[in-house]
């Protein structure tokens, strides 16, 4: 399929490139040496274990038989399949202790030991387990659908005779030749054979694997280059011997045997699954690893099943209840044994001497009877353990997840993705997060660069004023004008969200720059947000230094390695660049009128548009040398010859590097430029300095010979020689200016970070990117700011090749950490904030067992932590360190496959959906389409879910204790015989129907405060992080409440129904009447209790609470009308006995009131004299004080933020402190000079 890419003539990149991808003729010969020796051992596989894989290329049949029938490319991340579902899921269910207990109880219920009928034990269990399993099945089905989406992607596969056709990914087999087009993902791990470039290189984006955004170059072997179109594969065969599947992404060992020659293979020929072909029109490759053998799948770890802290604590409570259960059962069975031994012989009406073979009630063997009775008692008091708790929680969580999924405010219009709770069992954990570990690219940023500002010849261009300055200025202005709105500036700013600042659209900043605040920029052009008419439409000609500006534009247009591509639809050019910044430069140059339009082997063509002429002039710049960019050099240059024959070296690079290389007279603009660069840096922009140098013919040719010599040199020091050569020419530069590119943050990221910081969350950034980039983003997100003390940890530069190099580096890191900790300790300024920036290499040492705790305590002391160049593994390790070291809840958020480890390791993993690559989302617990939705997810949903679940669990324990203990008290009155006072059916329905729905409605609908208030008062989030609603104090309080209620229920009933008649007709109450009345009391008391617990009643809660009570009476009525064989003593009980008895109703009222009295006193007292934040806010809202007294409301909102050292607000605060400091010194100096008694403004 011919595409635009085919139009471009083939380029031989190796001619232009200096460093990495040249293949020297000599080196091929050098390769041939070992390959000859290898060819002797043709038939042998590679030596060593783990290198047994043999791939027969282009011979599909060879891989259908043993031993070469490798797994297909089918991937599956599901936990179960149809066969294994039942056994595995059931096993999973009964791993819960409570469920196992109920299973045992159900098994025993068929024997005569059980106090209940079998159906009353088995039915609830089956219901509960069935429901959980259904949920499990649904979740697995979703995973299956996701897998199938991937499996059913199509790829072009060689079908024989040089024909390629589409094949599903999962049908691809080892040895197949595939053709991958530009911007497609590789379906499996491939060996690169040839590409759209003549020399077989291709560009690969590995963002999904390691999170790095720059493109990587891969090159094929020389020998496979001829296979460059479909037909050439007709007769292609080869054999690959290589390593077995392994998870290492950066290594590969193997060789290729083609026409009896053996060629060594290395990682640069291997294209990994889930990386993407970029800037290359197509490639051919042969499949080496498929499906689960691929490196990316080998890296995938089984997603761990996560449980929230609340649930873990709940388990502990369940254990406590189990202990109580065992204790109570022991008492019961001891009592039974004693009674059986001592008293039962005299109870002739039981015919104790006529035991029915079992030893259940045998006075002669009281010990045995006691042991049997223990089992009975364990089953009888099982109501202490809420069987329906798990299932209720699961139902609630699914519904909560539904609300998360349905939240329109977390729906992204652009990608069309709503938020998704992929596993629902962590909802409440969202309300307890302490540390957020975030990926950068794709999460905080959109991986798009926008040209924003520049400084040319010492003049700054580009109008977009930094948001920090605006906000700080506004606030100061409002304070000085004695405005009523204090401290609210930062918040208001965000809330107005760019709709302008109302009354003051223009603000005079300190620097005298008047900046217009307009609606958020909507860049019409991707990659270009520059706004300054002085440079646009050729206006630059009338600026002070048009010559320098011209040079600036030419550097942008010429000094790069990109390739233009004509967009046939629009007629414009798009650029395929290695890094996004370069693309942004080219777009900027184009917009300034210097359109890069063509590249040949030796030249770059630029269409220059001047206002003087209508038609653009196409100029050719001959590229003589290209000195590439690498992370060590931090600069790139080209040597060109322009149309006038003038030799020029154009250079762009990191400012520090360029400034070091300026000539004496090239420093004209240095001071101004570096001032601008600082400003840009503070605003979080990526900066580069541009410079040039005029070269003399003679000088150049002398250098060129040196350079060529270095280029053709052999051996390990070739690179060093090349660098040295490049160094020689890249000096004596003349500074032209600097650029500022915005690494475009995703929408709303700084605001979101600000809010999260105010909610008391700590934010760590873990990125695979360079330190500079990460620091820029830190500034842009306000995680870093000027005045923050940066602690940078990176290993020494000295590359000691000694034995103890490792040790030395480690000691060095250790020293750095100790020093930094010391520094923090000695710091006295309360506003001082520290930022820790650590490099991946340093991290390797810092994460070692003996150092990691020291590292962690340092990191915890810092306001923000940024880890750069970290591998996916390290991300996971850091996450684990934070999780285990601090013991707090961690949340990891990321978008790429490189974040999977961290997402799985963290307590909560959040994936960013909407960007391609599903790995992160698949591994995540929640997926959102934009980082900014994290705020709502945590602050609103997390807060609610946490409170809901916490209250729900407490209530569950309360009600089961209240109910279960009455059974125990009754035992004391039955000689501990194991008789229950309630009908079996009451007991079944208690948990399943009569008390479950209100508590579920509590768990689903309760809102302490509305979502707006949650967002306005981020500090409320700390109620969850501090675990105020599920601490032992509260849990024990609820349990005590349950104990009290059980006592009330039982003894009031017993006392009232003691022996006398309960009806005018003289009848006395029997066990059924007392049991039913008692049960009625329980139903009323616990449902009243839940009504007191709730603070938010929609019609649903009202219906469910009243409905539960009504259901009980209706049930009693219906049960009474059923056959007496079913209902037994409950037959017509309500109609005939209870309803006509005033005492029945009187008892219900009394007990319900008495049970709830202490709780009512407690909450009344607490609310009156010790209100919690949400109580006060509820009251403010209730009395509409927020409407009446908006000043107070705004003030409180601004105070309600966690005093934070990071985030936008903190930055504004810091700026204000700084400005005030300046103002203060000004005023004091003024008052010092003039003795005029002007009182300083109030603000001071």
């Amino acid at each position, binding site marked *: 399929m011919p595409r635009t890419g085919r139009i471009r003539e083939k380029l031989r990149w190796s001619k232009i490139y200096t460093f990495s991808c040249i293949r020297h003729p000599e080196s091929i010969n050098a390769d041939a040496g070992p390959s000859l020796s290898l060819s002797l051992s043709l038939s042998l596989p590679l030596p060593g274990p783990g290198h047994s894989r043999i791939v027969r290329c282009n011979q599909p049949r060879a891989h259908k038989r043993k031993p070469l029938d490798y797994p297909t490319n089918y991937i599956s991340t599901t936990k179960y399949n149809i066969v294994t579902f039942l056994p595995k899921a059931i096993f999973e269910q009964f791993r819960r202790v409570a469920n196992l207990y109920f299973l045992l109880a159900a098994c025993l219920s068929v024997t005569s030991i059980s106090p209940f009928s079998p159906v009353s034990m088995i039915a609830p269990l089956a219901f509960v387990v069935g429901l959980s399993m259904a949920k499990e099945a649904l979740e697995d089905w979703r995973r299956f659908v996701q897998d199938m989406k991937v499996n059913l*992607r199509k790829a072009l596969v060689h079908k024989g005779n040089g024909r390629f056709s589409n094949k599903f990914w999962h049908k691809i087999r080892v040895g197949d030749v595939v053709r991958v087009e530009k911007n497609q993902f590789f379906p499996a791990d491939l060996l690169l054979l040839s590409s759209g470039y003549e020399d077989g290189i291709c560009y690969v984006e590995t963002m999904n694997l390691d999170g790095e955004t720059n493109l990587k170059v891969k090159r094929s072997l020389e020998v496979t280059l001829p296979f460059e179109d479909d037909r050439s594969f007709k007769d292609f065969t080869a054999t690959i011997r290589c390593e077995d599947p392994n998870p290492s992404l950066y290594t590969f060992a193997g060789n290729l045997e083609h026409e009896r020659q053996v060629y060594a293979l290395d990682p640069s020929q291997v294209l990994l699954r889930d990386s993407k072909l970029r800037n290359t029109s197509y490639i051919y490759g042969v499949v080496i690893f498929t499906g689960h053998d691929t490196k990316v799948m080998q890296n995938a770890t089984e997603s761990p099943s996560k449980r929230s802290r609340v649930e873990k604590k709940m388990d502990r409570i369940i254990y406590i209840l189990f202990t109580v259960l065992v204790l109570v059962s022991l008492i019961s069975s001891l009592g039974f044994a004693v009674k059986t031994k001592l008293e039962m012989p005299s109870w*002739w*009406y039981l*015919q104790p001497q006529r035991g*029915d073979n079992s030893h*259940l009630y045998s006075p002669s063997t009281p010990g045995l009877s006691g042991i049997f009775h223990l089992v009975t008692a364990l089953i009888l008091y099982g109501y202490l353990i809420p069987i329906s708790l798990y299932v209720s929680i699961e139902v609630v969580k699914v519904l909560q997840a539904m*609300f998360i999924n349905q939240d*329109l405010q977390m729906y992204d*219009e*652009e990608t*069309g993705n*709503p938020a998704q709770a992929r596993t629902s069992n962590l909802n409440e954990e969202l309300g307890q997060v302490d540390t957020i570990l975030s990926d950068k690219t794709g999460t905080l940023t959109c991986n798009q660069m926008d040209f924003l500002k520049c400084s040319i010849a010492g003049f700054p261009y580009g109008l977009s004023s930094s948001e920090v300055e605006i906000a700080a200025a506004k606030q100061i202005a409002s304070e000085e004008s004695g405005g009523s709105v204090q401290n609210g500036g930062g918040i208001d700013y965000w809330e107005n969200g760019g709709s302008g600042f109302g009354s003051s659209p223009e603000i005079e900043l300190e620097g005298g720059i008047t900046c217009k605040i307009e609606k958020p920029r909507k860049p*019409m*052009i*991707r990659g*270009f947000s520059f706004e300054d008419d002085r440079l646009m439409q050729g206006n630059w000609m009338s600026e002070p230094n048009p010559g320098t500006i011209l040079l600036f534009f030419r550097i942008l247009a010429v000094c790069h390695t990109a390739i233009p591509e004509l967009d046939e639809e629009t007629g414009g050019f*798009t650029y*395929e*660049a290695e890094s*996004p910044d370069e*693309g942004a430069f080219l*777009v900027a140059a184009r917009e300034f009128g210097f359109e890069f339009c063509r590249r040949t082997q030796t030249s770059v063509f630029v269409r220059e548009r001047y206002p003087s002429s209508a038609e653009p002039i196409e100029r050719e710049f001959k590229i003589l040398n290209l000195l590439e960019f690498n992370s060590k050099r931090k600069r790139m240059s080209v040597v060109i010859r322009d149309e006038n024959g003038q030799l020029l070296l154009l250079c762009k690079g990191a400012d520090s590097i360029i400034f070091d290389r300026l000539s004496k007279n090239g420093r004209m603009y240095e001071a101004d430029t570096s001032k601008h660069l600082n400003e840009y840096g503070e605003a979080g922009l990526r900066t580069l300095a541009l410079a040039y140098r005029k070269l003399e013919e003679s000088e150049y040719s002398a250098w060129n010979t040196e350079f060529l010599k270095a280029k053709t040199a052999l051996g390990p020091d070739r690179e060093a020689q090349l660098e040295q050569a490049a160094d020689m020419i890249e000096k004596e530069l003349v500074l032209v200016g600097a650029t500022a590119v915005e690494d475009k943050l995703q929408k709303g990221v700084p605001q979101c970070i600000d809010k999260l910081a105010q909610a008391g969350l700590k934010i760590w950034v873990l990125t695979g990117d360079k330190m500079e980039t990460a620091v820029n983003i830190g500034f842009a997100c306000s995680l870093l700011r000027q005045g923050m003390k940066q602690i940078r940890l990176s290993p020494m530069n000295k590359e000691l090749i000694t034995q103890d190099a490792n040790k030395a580096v480690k000691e060095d890191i250790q020293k750095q950490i100790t020093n930094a900790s010391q520094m923090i300790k000695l710091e006295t300024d309360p506003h001082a904030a520290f930022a820790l920036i650590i490099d991946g290499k340093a991290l390797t040492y810092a994460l070692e067992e003996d150092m990691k705790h020291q590292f962690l305590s340092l990191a915890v002391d810092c306001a923000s932590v940024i880890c750069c160049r970290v591998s996916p593994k390290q991300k996971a390790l850091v996450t684990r360190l934070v999780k285990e070291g601090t013991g707090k809840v961690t949340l990891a958020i990321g978008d790429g496959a490189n974040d999977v480890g961290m997402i799985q390791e963290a307590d909560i993993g959040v994936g960013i959906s909407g*960007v391609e690559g599903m790995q992160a989302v698949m591994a995540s617990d929640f997926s959102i389409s934009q980082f900014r939705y994290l705020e709502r997810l945590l602050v609103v949903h997390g807060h609610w879910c946490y409170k809901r679940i916490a209250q729900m669990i407490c209530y569950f324990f309360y009600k089961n204790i209240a109910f279960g203990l009455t059974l125990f008290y009754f035992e004391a*009155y*039955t000689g501990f015989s194991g*008789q229950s006072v309630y009908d079996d059916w009451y007991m079944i329905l208690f948990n399943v129907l009569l008390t479950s729905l209100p508590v579920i409605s509590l768990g689903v609908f309760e*809102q302490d405060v509305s979502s707006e208030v949650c967002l306005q008062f981020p500090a409320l989030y700390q109620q969850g992080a501090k675990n105020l609603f599920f601490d032992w104090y509260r849990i024990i309080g609820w349990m005590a409440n349950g104990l009290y209620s059980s006592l009330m229920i039982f003894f009031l009933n*017993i*006392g009232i129904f*003691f*022996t*006398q*008649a309960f009806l005018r*007709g*003289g*009848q*006395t109450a*029997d066990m059924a009447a007392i049991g039913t009345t008692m049960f009625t009391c329980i139903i009323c008391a616990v449902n009243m209790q839940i009504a007191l617990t709730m*603070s*938010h009643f*929609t*019609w649903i809660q*009202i219906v469910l609470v009243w409905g539960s009570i009504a259901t009980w009476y209706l049930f009693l009525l219906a049960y009474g009308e059923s056959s*007496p*064989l079913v209902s037994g*003593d409950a037959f*017509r009980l309500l109609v*005939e006995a209870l309803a006509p008895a005033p*005492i029945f109703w009187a008892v219900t009222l*009394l007990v319900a009131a008495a049970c709830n009295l202490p709780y*009512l006193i407690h*909450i009344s007292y607490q609310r*009156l*004299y010790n*209100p919690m*934040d949400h109580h*006060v806010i509820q*009251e*403010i809202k209730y009395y509409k004080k927020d409407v009446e007294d908006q000043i107070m409301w705004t003030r*409180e909102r601004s105070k309600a933020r966690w005093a934070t050292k990071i985030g936008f607000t903190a930055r504004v605060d810091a700026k204000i402190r700084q400005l005030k400091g300046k103002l203060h010194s000004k005023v004091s100096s003024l008052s010092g000079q003039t003795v005029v008694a002007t009182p300083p403004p109030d603000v001071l």
Partner: protein
Amino acid sequence: MMNNSGASAAGSSSGSGEGQAPRRNSKRPKYSRFTQQELPACKPILTPRWVISVFTLVGIIFVPIGLVSLMASRDVVEIVDRYDSACVPPNMTDDKVAYAQNAAIDKTCTRILKVPKDMDQPIYVYYQLDNFYQNHRRYVKSRNDEQLMSAKKANDSSGCDPEATTGNGTIVPCGLIAWSLFNDTYSFIHGNKNITVNKHNISWKSDRDHKFGKDVYPKNFQNGALIGGAKLDPKKSLSEQEDLIVWMRTAALPTFRKLYGRIEVDLKANDTITVTLKNNYNTYSFNGKKKLVLSTTSWLGGKNDFLGIAYLTVGGLCFFLATAFTVVYLVKPRKLGDPSYLSWNRNPQGH
């Protein structure tokens, strides 16, 4: 699928016209107040006014109920006479069990009761047993409802162990409960007149009509080696054996009263009643007390002050709480919605 415009940001640019992926609005959640958790809700808060009114209201309701209940209980006249030890002949007090088990001894015993207050008819006659575990699991389970209900199931005695069959076949009614039927009898003389004890309608109507069959007659009852309690008239169907029906409703507590009959005569204060009773039932083995109770009823039932006292206690407590809250509130009021109570205002450094 592959060419996602959002990701090919790397320098590719062609102005604004770059292909936006078509909006997939199908995934857009539908708006409803339910899914957005915006349902109209009532959000009551416990203001001091509410708290005080609630406590006062509970007090206002509960105290009168308590008083009324107490009065009803006080109106009931009750005569309780324990006769188990008094009816044992003095020579057998050392071996009461032998006395009870010896069928040859005449168990007749006479008691004189004095009426403390006027008692209006109907006066209910109860027997009260003590330390008798009618609620023991072995006991409660030992019955067969199907057999009691219909003649067709007469041979069904499942669950009746150990009193299911004799040598002659299935026992009807089977089980320990029926077997241990109470068999003391009482007859009353008021002045010189015999008072008839009406034993009709002392059981639940539904029991008579639906649970004890009209066509089920006692069979093999008390024919076994062990004689438990009362014998039944084999001529009368179970639905007419009201003593059995009352007995078969097992009591919840080891101390219980069961209705024996009704006296439909008004008794005046200081009247004496002579009770001639047959002290057959063996409670001596397990030291159980036996009492004869004569009681009137009120609308609330029998004599028990507990309900009234409980109501008065809770009501009084609520009055007390209402006062306490009022006082505390007056002494140290808190303005509702006063932001100074917010945590960040109370301990600013706590952040």
